[in-house]
């Protein structure tokens, strides 16, 4: 197991290095510099600014400096936000984004798992149809549509909750729900399929043949086996939340990294774009790694054979 984790860590570093390199190269191909809008600058002023950002160095030197900076945790300095280091800008956005993301993931998975289990146990009943409809709608309709509907009816029309911004718990409710719908629907769908399959397994018949009660069979023999594979979709789900936050933060004006990212895209703020990209990549890869390890710990079949 330790060897397996080590191997995966090395992989992670290689992937990160590649991502850093690719995003650096792509950035250099980008049309325009942060100064293209500032026409009023004199050539001398322009030169001074380019020099101070290191944009006059030959590209390999810029690349080297960039990599060295990365290893030291330095993501460069923003072009846009008052020359502040990218790490501090990111640091400012992460709390809101993380809070939103974690709340949504918890809400989505807990409700989704419950819904999926219910509809599997009462297969073909009313609960099943209702949750199937919710699952199809939730996985199909984009989160920003839900966000729009809720924002218009609940916040604008009824005034029950704030329309936008981030000033306390009630501000987090609508964005959290909007973001949670997709994981909720995905979990419900996944758990339902898994659970139905598990309930059709021979070992469930064995358990029933032992004379165990229906609830014991479902809880002790069913749920456990149905939930283990759920871990595999949690990774992709968490990643889809990253995508979701970009849009949801826009709609509800949440001061998170998503919103920063979008505004840095509009203003060609390379360091912030690259920093956020790398940050997303680290989160993404770390998530997959953690889930792999978790899977190994929870599923006895994998645990014993030692990973792969």
């Amino acid at each position, binding site marked *: 197991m330790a060897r397996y984790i080590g191997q995966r860590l090395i992989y992670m570093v290689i992937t990160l290095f590649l991502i850093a390199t690719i995003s650096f190269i792509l950035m250099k191909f980008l049309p325009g510099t942060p100064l293209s809008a500032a026409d009023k600058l004199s050539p001398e002023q322009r030169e001074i600014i380019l020099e101070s950002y290191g944009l006059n160095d030959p590209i390999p030197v810029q690349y080297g400096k960039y990599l060295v900076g990365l290893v030291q945790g330095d993501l460069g300095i923003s072009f846009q936000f008052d020359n502040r280091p990218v790490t501090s800008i990111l640091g400012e956005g992460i709390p809101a984004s993380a809070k939103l993301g974690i709340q949504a993931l918890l809400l989505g998975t807990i409700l989704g798992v419950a819904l999926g289990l219910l509809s599997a146990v009462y297969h073909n009943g009313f609960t099943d149809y209702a949750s199937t409809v919710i699952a199809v709608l939730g996985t199909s309709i984009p989160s920003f549509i839900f966000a729009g509907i809720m924002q218009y009816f609940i916040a604008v029309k009824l005034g029950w909750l704030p329309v936008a911004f981030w000033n306390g718990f009630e501000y987090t409710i609508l964005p959290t729900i909007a973001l949670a719908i997709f994981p909720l629907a995905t979990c419900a769908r996944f758990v339902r399929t898994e659970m139905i399959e598990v309930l059709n397994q021979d070992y469930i018949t064995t358990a029933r043949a*032992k004379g165990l009660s229906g609830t014991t069979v479902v809880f002790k023999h069913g749920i456990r086996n149905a939930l283990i594979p759920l871990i595999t979709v949690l990774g992709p789900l968490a990643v889809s939340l990253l995508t979701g936050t970009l849009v949801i933060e826009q709609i509800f004006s949440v001061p998170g990294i998503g919103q920063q990212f979008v505004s840095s895209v509009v203003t060609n703020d390379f360091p912030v774009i690259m920093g956020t990209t790398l940050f997303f990549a680290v989160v993404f890869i770390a998530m997959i790694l953690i889930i792999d390890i978790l899977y190994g710990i929870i599923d*006895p079949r994998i645990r014993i054979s030692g990973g792969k």
Partner: protein
Amino acid sequence: MDRLLEVNDLHVSFNTYSGEVQAVRGVNFHLNKGETLAIVGESGSGKSVTTKALMGLLPKPHGFIKQGSITFDNTDISKMKDKDLQKIRGKEIAMIFQDPMTSLNPTLKVGTQIMEGLIKHQGMGKADARNKAIELMNLVQIPNPEARMKQYPHQFSGGMRQRVVIAMALACNPRVLIADEPTTALDVTIQAQILDLMKDIQKKVNTSIIFITHDLGVVANIADRVAVMYAGKIVETGTVDEVFYNPKHPYTWGLLGSMPTLESDEEELFAIPGTPPDLIAPPKGDAFAARNRFALEIDFVEEPPMFKVSDTHYAATWLLHEDAPKIEPPASVKRRIESMDHSEEATRS
């Protein structure tokens, strides 16, 4: 002899998208104390469904008992509520399943799975249950039971898993043990071990066994009586000797004839042509008629009743009617029977 279990006119159906499948269409049999009854038939003949119905384990809501009764210990259990059935399942009637690779829960320790029934039915505490489980694992000859208790099913071989399944079934000293093709999924060498184990255990705990199989060789080895099933009905029933040495139903002839033996090298196998009928719309008359090379006109008109051959031997074929032409089993089947006779004697002496 005491009749422990009696099945009367049992009909089991499944609702499917294409219609109602009549998997079992009027089955009668009984099981005496301490005996082993083998139910034989090809896949889809309804033998597994019959035993699932006995246990109340038909897949809900598609599968259901349409009519008939299952009398166990003088009570009809076919109409019992699931809650009451739970007290019988595993305690009075236990079951061994076909595929040991899938019939154990992969995420629970083997010990836990054996102990479950003990805790539920015998009201044992964990410690007592553990001791009893170790005892059971010794009984089914699993070496080193203390350590094996803490392992997961995937750490067991197929044969060892089947021993675990048997240990689970035996946990509460059931009066009836239903074994649904318990050796089919195993290697031939392991098959023999498991059969010996079952015979051995039956002697020790004196339980009655219903043994489902499509393998006539296994039947001869283990059973006292045989019931041959075809298309949801029992077509011939009798003691092992009667059915093996004096078969009356052409389907039984077919089964015997299609069984390869060591002596069969020069003979062709007597295969049964065609496939079993569609049980959504069972054919009129004898369901076997279309595949029967000795079919009579009446087979396509009227279903044959059970004709009595001896007090214990019955067969449902018009060939036994007084008006029917006298038809002998095909020569190859006869020779097969004779050779079995010899080999039996050879092994006995």
